[in-house]
């Protein structure tokens, strides 16, 4: 648990530094366009990486299991503009139902 707490403290301190930099430093200053752009695209790249690995990875191996179907169903819900919580519930419930039916 102490390693987890240390990791959280790093995350908290770094996140606060990122958040407070603007309000503390910027009296009329703005970030250069390339920095804003990188921050944007970084978010897209990391979110996509998280989707991909948490759908297909099990430790360091790649497998196709019930999660893939669940995430595909969630993707359909996203496409239909379902609210966030509905997307999450559809993803989890689809996967849970498939597991209950005996498919891993």
């Amino acid at each position: 648990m102490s390693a987890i707490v240390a990791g959280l403290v790093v995350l908290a301190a770094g996140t606060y530094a990122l958040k407070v930099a603007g309000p503390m430093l910027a009296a009329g200053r703005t970030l250069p366009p390339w920095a804003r752009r990188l921050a944007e695209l970084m978010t897209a790249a990391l979110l996509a990486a998280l989707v991909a690995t948490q759908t297909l990875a099990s430790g360091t191996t790649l497998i196709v299991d019930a999660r893939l179907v669940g995430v595909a169903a969630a993707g359909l819900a996203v496409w239909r503009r379902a609210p966030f919580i509905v997307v999450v519930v559809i993803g989890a419930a689809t996967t849970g139902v498939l597991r209950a039916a005996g498919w891993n």
Partner: protein
Amino acid sequence: MRSLYRTLWRSSRDPAFTKAFPVGVAVAAYGLSYGVLAVAAGLSPLVATISSIIVLAGGSQFAFVGVLAAGGSPLAGAISGLLLNLRYLAFGFAIAPHLPHARRRRRAIDGYLVVDESVALGLAGPNDAVAHRFRVAGWTVVTMWIGATALGAYGGQLIGDPERFGLDAAFPAGFLALLSPWLVHRPGRVAAVLGAVLAIGLTPVAPPGIPIIAAGFGAIVAMRLTPANLPEVDDAPGGGEPTAGNPQRHGDDS
């Protein structure tokens, strides 16, 4: 007691609050699932609750526990979360000009309140009340996010084995919803595809957590590959990303 009542009555008629409240409800739903999943990933309920107080950035907290759940180290989880939070640097700079004449301590608190929802709701509307809308939305998110995390963390233990209910698929489903606003423009799509391909390609050969961090290079490559035609982010946090008031937007990422 009487002044508490008066405060509640006044805020129930404040348009900034009536706008922020539904967003707060979505944040609460998200916080509830974070609490459950954080405990499933190995955090104690107390640590899970404290994490929401000290980090207050939902997407990165999900990333952190997601990396842990996949067997990655806490440090790899923290770095993934921080890369995800780089956008708050841009958000902080977007809201800063609207917080004038504030004292240092006030600005330090304003910095804590910088989340997707507060910046989006703050900047949506007339210019003279940006700071007020930002702070009202910020405190709404703080209350809902922390309270819901505690509820999920302490109540989630009643559920039992989370995999049985497909809760491990709740992570990628949630991230997919958060990702969707970035898929409307080409640079966002290129970055997303590159990030996903890099992470999957590295999974068999790199320690858990590292593929997520390496996916950040996808953003750098996408920047070189696509023209700089992202919508301006001066007025819209997230550069063209639909704001919280827009039905296109999914949930939150406090």
